[in-house]
């Protein structure tokens, strides 16, 4: 049965009418870490959508807590539905840092955290302590991952509680996957050890 209001079809054949406004930030998938070596979002698997359905995709990572002290939270992209996570990337990384002691706040480019035509995992945070209250949270946005014409641009920001003098580190990361092949999977992991706990949510945003 269709629902028609004032000549406008609201619902028909199991779907909203095209003229009905809907939310444009759609939750696609939530993964919860539990002593996890990796957390992967693969298009077409476990209800994950990561193709041209949306213009851009946003991952929000919340309280990612490492099993190993001084771990970096990282990500990579795949061109073969998760068989390999090794897309070549050129990236930037800078961060603002401030210790709880209140002195020596700084803003600096981090040459050790960026990539120049490297297929390695990209750091998304400063080093994270594994104390019970230490973690990192933030977001990663990837634009048009399924394009077969353009490089794959991404932007990320995180804040991490860093071991050693109790620092807060606000990291700004961006770059491009230097490929014109479609990206169909994203993997997150700590650079060393498991992700003890934390939640990653994938949203699609599209016009």
């Amino acid at each position, binding site marked *: 049965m269709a*629902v*028609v*209001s*004032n*000549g*406008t079809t*609201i619902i028909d054949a199991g779907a909203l009418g095209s003229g*009905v*406004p*809907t*939310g*444009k*930030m759609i939750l696609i998938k939530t993964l919860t870490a539990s002593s996890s070596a990796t957390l992967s979002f693969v298009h077409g698997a476990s209800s994950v959508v990561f193709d041209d359905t949306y*213009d*851009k995709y946003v991952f929000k990572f919340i309280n990612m807590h490492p099993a190993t002290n001084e771990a970096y939270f990282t990500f990579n992209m795949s061109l073969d539905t998760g068989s390999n996570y090794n897309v070549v990337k*050129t*990236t*930037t*990384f*800078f961060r603002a840092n401030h210790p709880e002691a209140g002195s020596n706040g700084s*803003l*600096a*480019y981090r*040459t050790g955290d*960026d*990539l*120049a*035509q490297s297929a390695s995992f990209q750091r998304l945070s400063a080093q994270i302590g594994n104390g019970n209250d230490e973690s990192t949270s933030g977001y990663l946005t990837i*634009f*048009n991952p399924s*394009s077969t*014409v*353009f*490089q794959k*641009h*991404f*932007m990320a920001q995180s804040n991490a509680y860093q071991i050693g003098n109790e620092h807060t580190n606000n990291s*700004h*990361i*961006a*770059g*491009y996957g*230097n490929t*014109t092949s479609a990206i169909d999977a994203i993997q997150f992991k700590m650079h060393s050890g498991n992700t003890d706990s934390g939640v990653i949510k994938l949203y699609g*945003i*599209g*016009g």
Partner: protein
Amino acid sequence: MGLISATSTIFDAGSMSAGFGGSMTFIKKLTASSSGTLSFLNGSGGVVLDDTYKEYVFTFKNIHPATDDQAFTFQVDTGSNTSFNQAITSSFFNAQHSEGDANYLMYRATGDLAQGTGFQRLTEGSGNDNDQSCCGTLTIHAPADTTFVKHFIAQTHNAHSGNYAMNNFIAGYVNTTTALTRVRFKYESGNIDAGDICLYGIA
């Protein structure tokens, strides 16, 4: 016919009631095709750019220049004016990293404006290789306000013509208390070959 559930009106008179459908509302998509400019004009072509929303977000997807080494830019105007020359004071800094491993983090005086009426840069010189483009967002807060200046915040990422990744942070205000009604995007020189710009209203 309206649709009422537990005394809440869901639909009536052909539209959804407030509070349904999410708080990020898609308004308009413009797709470039060798376009000199892309303009969003309140009241034209389905564009809403008034006091309906408190903030408006433009998203840029793979904006590709016809001409190499060009900055992607924007300006605004009021009423039905077509000059796109409002006074802007802004800041611009970016992080850069080349494929050859040179890196920088710096304020870019060439990208800011001090009561300038020219177009505000949203990137530095984007490359026009087939796979190069820029992506990002521009948020304009309360464009229809008639008391305050109009703040904007943008972040973009572009592939520079010299094969750099550039993470750009731009913010400022349009120094007018007149309501803004229109926004225009263009490259400093040459056409926008391809790319999409979407406009969303945030309730």
